[in-house]
């Protein structure tokens, strides 16, 4: 990676699929906030100019040979970050919904508390103005289900604005949910007795493109994620296939 790593040994990971309209601005914003951290865009085989826009904006681009979906895309970035020896990785979505100004807050908590994962939470201080009604219902269901499993409340389990330390990076580079990974990833960490913490942040409307989770898909999303959560609880770890 060309940019210096800085004292934090932090990598900013941006998974992107057909985000040509927003990715350049997202990379610019991130580089303004954390100029010393390399920015890695993982291009999930976009059909538009996502890769070119990201490169022009100064990011390194990891190009996947075909579309893997969000989980496979993020995990590819985690694997590369782990192999390159990074201590911290903060994931920012490529659609511009995550405000990079909160990256230092996430990093500070990650470094100072020793927790394995931090989640940028739009509900931590009731600042969740950019959430649809369907998604809000889904989040409410997930909170109820996850509370006893995780042993602590999680206010924004669907947030993709997350930071992980090297220990979590090692776990995720070996085992990471493929579809709708945010919630299942919490269960994966819980099985390792890892700790997470939420950090208040604001989410913005996406700058371009469309969400992958439409209203029609929401029910399937809830069922899929709930099933994934229970499967992860029951998972037999002796045979780890997704290496």
């Amino acid at each position, binding site marked *: 990676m060309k940019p210096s790593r800085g004292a934090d040994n932090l990598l900013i990971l941006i998974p992107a699929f057909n985000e040509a309209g927003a990715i350049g601005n997202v990379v610019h914003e991130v580089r303004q906030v954390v100029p010393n951290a390399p920015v890695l865009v993982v291009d999930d085989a976009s059909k538009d100019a996502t890769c070119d826009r990201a490169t022009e904006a100064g990011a390194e681009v990891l*190009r996947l*040979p075909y579309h*893997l979906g969000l989980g*496979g895309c993020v995990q*590819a970035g985690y*694997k*590369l970050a782990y*192999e390159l020896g990074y201590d911290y990785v903060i994931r920012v979505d490529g659609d511009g919904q995550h405000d990079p100004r909160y990256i230092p807050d996430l990093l500070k908590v990650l470094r100072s508390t020793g927790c394995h994962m931090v989640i940028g939470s739009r509900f931590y201080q009731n600042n969740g103005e950019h959430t649809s009604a369907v998604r809000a219902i889904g989040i409410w269901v997930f909170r109820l289900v996850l509370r006893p499993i995780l042993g602590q409340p999680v206010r924004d389990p669907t947030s993709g604005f997350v930071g992980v330390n090297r220990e979590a990076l090692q776990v995720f580079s070996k085992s990471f949910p*493929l579809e709708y990974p945010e919630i299942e990833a919490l269960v994966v960490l819980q099985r390792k007795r890892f700790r997470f913490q939420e950090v208040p942040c604001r989410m913005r409307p996406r700058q371009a493109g469309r969400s992958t989770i439409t209203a029609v898909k929401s029910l399937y999303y809830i069922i899929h994620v709930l099933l994934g959560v229970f499967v992860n609880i029951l998972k037999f770890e002796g045979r780890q296939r*997704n290496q």
Partner: protein
Amino acid sequence: MERLLNAVTILSLALMAAVLFSVRRSHIRVEYSVSWLAAAAILLLLSRSRPLLNWISDQLGLTYPPLALFLLVSCIFVVVIYRLSVVISDLKDANIAMAQRLAIVEFQLQDRNER
């Protein structure tokens, strides 16, 4: 009843022939043909052995032997399809891991060339 059993015999022979043809043309790998050939052989055996079919339907408490035949056929295909789901899941995991590895190796090669 007899017509039904004859039809099942023809079906099982056709399935065997199709699988063997596919193996010969390399459309199915030998290891995945075994499940289908075993399923076809069981169907053939049941359709040609009335005493065996009657005995199975007695054991299952069914008064109509063709019901036992269809129950067994369903079970066999459920097992075969389940096995294929396991294989597909393995292949998908391997495929994703390989795609990620390919992307990372390409990235590192490009990085090295640019230095």
